[in-house]
């Protein structure tokens, strides 16, 4: 048990080093949200009315959550690579804590998310975004997003360990992320959606999270969004942490 902490540290460091050596991983997790930000600000944004002032103020919190969500998919892809390349066998033959492989990966992904959030917020500032509700509330919003990303990393990890190759992990990642991201309040208010989609979007954990982050950043009423978001996060972790660990144990 005493070694668990050091094992997690070693594994986190390994995964962070990968990000430094493979800048394309970081570029992928930042270029894409920047593109979305530009696309929606300058192409679609003019046609979208949100009733909340500047569209960039409405959009950026959504884009941050989306970046964190897409980043979570990397967790599963990375794990799948470790499995398919035999790295996992090496780790499993070492006297290390088995949980460190999963924990090291998810923690490193969380640290990468901090970097992405800071960078994206800076880009947002260049495009006119402003924190309207004080820095402290924005920090709470960042904490919210990191917790959200951590929970979804476990979903992604479970999928990554369940599929047979990295390509499938990539596709299997997008299949569930895409509808979740677009049928949510990331880009447009849920109230403007058609009925069936609207119901889905209203209960979507991403909507609750985005609404919370947006409210904390812009000084809008948070309402129950934060509680529903937290309930979702806890529920997701309660299901996918044991499921992921179980899948991991069953690798042969």
């Amino acid at each position: 048990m005493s070694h668990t902490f050091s094992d997690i540290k070693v594994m986190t460091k390994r995964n962070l080093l990968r990000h430094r050596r493979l800048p394309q991983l970081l570029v992928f997790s930042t270029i894409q949200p920047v593109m979305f930000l530009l696309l929606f600000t300058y192409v679609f944004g003019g046609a979208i009315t949100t009733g909340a002032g500047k569209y960039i103020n409405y959009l950026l919190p959504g884009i941050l959550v989306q970046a964190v969500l897409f980043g979570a998919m990397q967790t599963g892809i990375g794990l799948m690579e470790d499995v398919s390349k035999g790295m996992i066998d090496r780790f499993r033959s070492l006297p290390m804590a088995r949980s460190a492989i999963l924990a090291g990966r998810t923690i490193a992904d969380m640290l990468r998310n901090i970097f992405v959030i800071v960078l994206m917020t800076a880009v947002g500032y260049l495009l006119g975004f402003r924190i309207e509700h004080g820095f402290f509330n924005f920090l709470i919003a960042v904490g919210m997003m990191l917790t959200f990303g951590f929970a979804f990393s476990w979903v992604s990890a479970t999928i990554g360990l369940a599929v047979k190759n990295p390509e499938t992990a990539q596709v299997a990642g997008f299949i569930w992320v895409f509808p979740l991201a677009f049928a949510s309040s990331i880009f447009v208010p849920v109230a403007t959606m058609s009925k069936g989609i609207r119901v889905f979007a209203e209960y979507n954990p991403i909507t609750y999270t985005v609404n919370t982050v947006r409210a904390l950043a812009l000084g809008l009423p948070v309402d129950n969004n934060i509680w529903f978001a937290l309930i979702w996060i806890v529920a997701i972790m309660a299901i996918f942490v044991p499921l992921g660990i179980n899948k991991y144990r069953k690798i042969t």
Partner: protein
Amino acid sequence: MTAHPLISYINSARERGMTSKQITRALTGAGWHVHDVMDIMLDHLPVREGESQIIHESETSDNIISVRNVSKSYGPKIIALDNISLGVKRGSITALLGPNGAGKTTLIRLMTTLLVPDSGAIRVAGYDTVRQAQKLRGAIGLAGQYVAVDETLTGQENLEMVGRLYHLSPSESATRAKGLLLKFDLQDAADRPVKTYSGGMRRRLDLAASLIARPAVLFLDEPTAGLDPRSRFMLWQTIRELVEQGTTVLLTTQYMEEADQLAHHIIVIDHGHIIAQGTADELKRQVGGDILELHVSERDKAHQIAALVSKYGISEPRVNKETGVITVPVEGGASILVDVIRDADAEDLKLLDIVLRRPSLDDVFLKLTGHTAI
């Protein structure tokens, strides 16, 4: 299950303050087998602090690996290993030899705790692979079938990471990593990411990683697969050196020559069973006599020649479908060559070459299994 008579004995001996080592010694002295004593201590009695180590030291048997009645299936249809028992001597090089799918890798994965046997028990370096998996992992090194190093990290970083995960201190990990990179002629590439390494360099780094904790037992799953002859020869040298320094090496191979050159003890596996074991010479002796090998220029005459030489053979001649080479085990020495050439002349059959040689492991394998190795 009724209580084993030893349980009450061991319990009362413990109450009298005897250590496990003393108890084991007393019981083995009285004719009990050390494995039985160890099993009962592990299975039925509470383990005391530091216990496994004490039992380990008292192990009188010179086998560092013991596999007893192990079976492993993947689902109902695929039986990978069927009731296998074997021992590996401390300080030896033992080769598991067999074709693809024979069960070699499954056996290695069971011994290195990556798989759990369906039945039976395996003990490595004094630890049970299931009950004491974590301690066992600290005493072994594994270089699997695929090179398991992180491509984005440098050679030095890879080794340090593995060292740290064996719970060596950061400075110890760094020092040993440097030493191993030097030993494996990777010092110039130490600070380059592994993705710039050649296949041979990766293999060496992988082996170095499995050695960083100076394991008592080293497992190598097809260590030379895909290596050029020079790298293969160098790896054999390295393995021999390790064993001279006291490491026990268990490797799998499908190359007869590798087993022949390297291993003190060869265990031949086919379809999940051990079909033979012994030194290379012992196995070859099982074939008996010599092998008469005939090369023909006209492939379609091969069977005619096989029929011709069958009367000299101690078993039926075989014709290799791909090469057309005829082999037959014979006894009676070189005079057979003269007889065969005379017979062939009389029948007007042309021979390209005729050789009388000692049996190879290929012949052993052929005899034991009825099919060639690969």
